[in-house]
């Protein structure tokens, strides 16, 4: 574990993402304006250049994601960020990156949808993030920060995971994470190796056979073989499961929530614990791979579950699938346009606890 002894700074979640990317030695950033993620490209436009990197304000999110494809094909640490409507536009390139095994990092500070929706927080992009989003049979790692500190930490980790698996990694926050300000303890990873893509990145065929980055496989059986190789990789990615449990040990009811909602739910759980109620929290940090085994283990103890999301019910499908051999999960929905407080969760949690 690297020592986390850098300066403690008071920043927005969006800035934490940018700081994290710079600490992870991100060399190229490709952006396009959209609320509520604008601080990321705004900060990167100067900071990455000062660090010797490159910033491009692309003509569209389509172009930005394809610039990411190009930079990562060259074996460079690179990133793009956007919010929901822009992330829809990036899906084609994300699919190509998955098919071509490229380590792109994509940040989604999501907002309300569908369509133009609103510019407030929402978690309506869960399905898009974890079930593919673009065309074809592929997976992306999805990391969901709940604090500005985690936005910083997980952005650094996103680059490591992307290169470890040669796969796109999505950091899924929302307008709350992006816009709130918190103290963040910065740290600099020491393990980032120069030339980590030396054996596959495009650099010109000098003194070695030429290299080809592609996702087209027309020869008989080639695509099937390629997809089976990807499947194997996705299996290996299961080792990256991350989650937080809080007061679950003797809990009779476990709230399942991710990202900003997980954090607000934690406050509600804390308050109810003080009142002697046996409730706990399970917060998936990796949405893909989904921490289904850990969740199932909790269910084996006979607990009840309540999934809370800022949408009409998306992650709850994965929760129910994970719990299926033992039990189910209730669901409490927060709609876009609302910023929930811990108190809003009290009644539904108590309702679920009492059955």
């Amino acid at each position: 574990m690297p020592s986390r002894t850098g300066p403690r700074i008071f920043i927005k979640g969006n800035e934490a993402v940018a700081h994290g990317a710079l600490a992870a030695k991100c060399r190229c950033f490709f952006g396009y304006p959209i609320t509520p993620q604008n601080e990321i490209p705004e900060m990167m436009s100067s900071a990455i250049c000062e660090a010797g990197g490159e910033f491009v304000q692309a003509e569209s999110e389509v172009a930005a994601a394809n610039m990411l494809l190009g930079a990562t094909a060259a074996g460079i640490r690179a990133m793009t960020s956007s919010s929901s409507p822009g992330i829809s536009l990036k899906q084609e390139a994300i699919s190509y990156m998955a098919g071509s095994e490229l380590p792109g990092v994509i940040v989604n500070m999501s907002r309300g949808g569908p369509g133009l929706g609103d510019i407030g927080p929402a978690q309506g992009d869960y399905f898009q993030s974890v079930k593919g989003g673009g065309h074809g049979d592929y997976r992306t790692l999805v990391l969901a920060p709940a604090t500005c500190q985690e936005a910083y930490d997980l952005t650094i980790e996103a680059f490591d995971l992307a290169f470890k698996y040669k796969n796109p990694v999505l950091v899924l926050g929302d307008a709350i994470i992006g816009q709130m300000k918190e103290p963040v303890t910065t740290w600099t990873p020491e393990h980032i190796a120069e030339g980590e893509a030396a054996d596959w990145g495009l650099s010109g065929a000098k003194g070695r056979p030429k290299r080809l980055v592609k996702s087209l496989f027309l020869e008989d059986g080639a695509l099937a073989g390629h997809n089976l190789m990807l499947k194997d990789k996705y299996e290996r990615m299961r080792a990256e499961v991350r989650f937080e449990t809080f007061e679950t040990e003797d809990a009779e009811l476990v709230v399942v929530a991710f990202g900003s909602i997980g954090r607000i739910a934690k406050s509600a759980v804390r308050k109810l614990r003080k009142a002697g109620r046996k409730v706990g929290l399970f917060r998936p940090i990796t949405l893909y791979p989904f921490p289904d085994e850990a969740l199932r283990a909790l269910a084996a103890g006979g607990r009840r579950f309540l999934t809370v999301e800022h949408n009409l019910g998306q992650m709850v499908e994965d929760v129910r699938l994970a719990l299926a051999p033992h039990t189910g999960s209730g669901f409490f929905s927060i709609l876009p346009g609302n910023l929930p407080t811990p108190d809003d969760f009290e009644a539904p949690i108590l309702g679920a606890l009492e059955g």
Partner: protein
Amino acid sequence: MQAKEKIVFERPMSVIDRATHYCPGCQHGVIHRLVGEVLDEMGLREKAILVSAIGCSVFLYNYLDVDAVEAPHGRAPAVATGVKRARPDNFVFTYQGDGDLASIGLAEIMHCANRGERVATVFVNNTIYGMTGGQMAPTTMIGQKTTTCPGGRCREREGQPLKMAEIIAGLGGTAYCARVAVDTVKHLTAAKKALRKAFEVQEKGLGFGFVEFLATCPTGWKMTPVKANERIAEELIPYFPLGEFKDESKNTEAC
């Protein structure tokens, strides 16, 4: 006395010795060879990174002995931007068809040129979507029949064929822009010269280089290779004039 043999024509080093998948009379192969010759002559093979586009020429990466990445349909100039920003010391070029570049990828090519990205684009205008079976392209000629304009392209409904070389030349970041053809030896010579200049402006750091090639698609045009080659001079060149539309290759400063 025996006559001394002298080799006057060889396969360029940058071109791989294998059969291509192209239809008889298709000029993609001729243009591939020109690209290979210029890469050889400028000593660029070992530093070149090709961004191939979606279309008949997607397999260019099987024919050139250079590093390559495959871009989604129309996005090659954005992918090339990413490659070049990541590896400014490499020579980066795209090779795109007219459906790819002038239709779905219009935003990407115009902004790449306008930013003056230090990349080059080889644009092959065969006035049709070849790979998907001969549908109408933005460059299809008025009256030309395709599978999606079986009565012939109509100006009122489908607009005029886009003149990409003229459009790209009008953009600030373009350092070199020309339209060429490969239907005659004279045109081939001029085409190679243009390609060389388009590559040179990148090497000199002057800006974006662009060459539009008028090319045949005998299968899509439903013509013999000879007739298709004749169509270049008879129908295409009168509407798509050949020549240099912008040349800042003599400049010493970036545009």
